[in-house]
C-alpha cells in the first residue's frame, strides 16, 4: 500500500485463516523476488559437483582471509571495502566455467551472469580461479586471454592477454574486475576466457566437469546507489 494511504494494522477486515495464510505466502514470494530483482523464480538449476563447490568455497575463504590479513578493509585495486551495514545490498556470485571450443592444448571457457544482477549492481571485485596440472618440472609458459565479442557478435577480440610461468601444479588467481565491469553493461553478460598451455600438457581443462579443479569466477558486487532526486 502506498505509504500514508491507510494503515494495514488498523481496521482490516478479518480474513479466514486459510485465505490469510495464502495471502501472506503470496506476499512473501513477491517480496523476495522483488528484492532479488527476479521476474520469476529461476528454473531448476544444474548444480555444480559437490567436489567443485567445496573446493571453490575453500579457495574463496582462503582468498578472503589473505586479502583481509594483508590489507584490512582494502580491495585489491586499492578502493576501500564497503563496511557491512552501509545499507547497500551486496552480492557474492560464484560462477563455474562452461567449456567452449578447444584444440589439443587450448580451450575457451564461458562464464554467464544473470542480467538482473548485472544490470543493477556495480562490481567491487572479480577473480578468476584456474588450476594448472603441470606435468614435469621447471617453469612452463601458459597464456590466459580475455576475449570480448565484437558488436556483431560474430567474432571475438582479445582485450587482455596474460602470460604466466607455472612452476608446479596448483591454483592461480587472476583479477578480471575490469573485464567483468565492462561486460556487465552488455545485454548478455558473458565472460569468455581462452587458456593456452604447452603442447605436451594436453588439454588445460580437467577431464570431466565434476572434477574439483574446475575453473570458476567469484564476483563481489553491490547494488547501485539509488538515484536520489533532491526536492528544491
Amino acid at each position, binding site marked *: 500500500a502506498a505509504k500514508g494511504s491507510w*494503515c494495514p494494522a488498523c481496521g482490516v477486515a478479518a480474513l479466514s485463516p486459510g485465505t490469510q495464510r495464502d495471502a501472506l505466502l503470496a506476499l512473501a*514470494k513477491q517480496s523476495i523476488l522483488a528484492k532479488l530483482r527476479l521476474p520469476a523464480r*529461476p528454473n531448476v538449476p544444474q548444480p555444480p559437483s559437490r567436489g567443485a563447490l567445496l573446493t571453490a568455497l575453500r579457495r574463496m575463504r582462503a582468498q578472503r582471509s589473505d586479502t583481509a590479513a594483508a590489507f584490512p578493509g582494502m580491495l585489491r585495486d586499492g578502493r576501500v571495502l564497503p563496511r557491512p551495514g552501509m545499507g547497500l545490498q551486496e552480492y557474492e556470485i560464484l560462477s563455474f566455467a562452461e567449456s567452449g571450443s578447444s584444440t589439443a592444448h587450448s580451450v575457451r571457457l564461458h562464464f554467464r551472469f544473470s542480467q538482473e544482477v548485472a544490470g543493477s549492481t556495480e562490481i567491487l571485485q572479480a577473480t578468476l580461479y584456474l588450476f594448472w596440472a603441470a606435468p614435469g618440472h621447471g617453469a612452463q609458459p601458459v597464456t590466459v586471454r580475455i576475449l570480448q565479442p565484437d558488436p556483431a557478435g560474430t567474432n571475438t577480440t582479445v582485450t587482455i592477454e596474460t602470460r604466466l610461468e607455472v612452476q608446479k601444479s596448483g591454483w592461480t588467481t587472476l583479477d578480471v574486475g575490469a573485464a567483468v565491469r565492462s561486460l556487465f553493461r552488455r545485454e548478455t553478460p558473458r565472460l569468455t576466457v581462452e587458456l593456452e598451455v604447452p603442447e605436451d600438457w594436453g588439454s588445460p581443462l580437467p577431464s570431466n566437469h565434476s572434477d574439483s579443479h574446475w575453473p570458476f569466477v567469484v564476483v563481489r558486487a553491490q547494488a547501485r546507489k539509488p538515484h536520489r532526486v533532491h526536492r528544491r
Partner: protein
Amino acid sequence: GVDCGAEPRMCCRQEFFVDFKEIGWEDWIIQPEGYHMNYCAGLCPLHMAGVPGLAASFHTAVLNRIKAASAAAAVDSCCVPTQRRPLSLLYYDRDSNIVKTDIPDMIVDSCGCT
C-alpha cells in the same frame, strides 16, 4: 516489543514462517530453509501512541494518562516494525551460478506504535 498471543488485541509482533519446501522453492534456494516474515498486528489506541515498546518511565506514564484522557477526540496510531534485520540468502540464479546476498530489513524483530 511484544509478541502476539492467541488473540492479539494490542500492537504486537505476529510470527509467520514461510517454509521454502512448502512453496516449492527448496530447489533453487540453498539456504536458509525458510523465511521469518513476521508482521505487526493489533491496536494502537491513543494512549499507546509513540510507545515503540513498553518504556516504564514516569514520564511515559504521565504522557499516556494525558492521551487517555483526550482519547475521545483523537485517532489511533499505527502498529509498525521498530526493529528489523536482513535476510541472508544463498541461491542458484537462472544461469546456475551460486549467489549469496543479504536483503536488508526483511525480518521484523519487534513492533510498536507510531
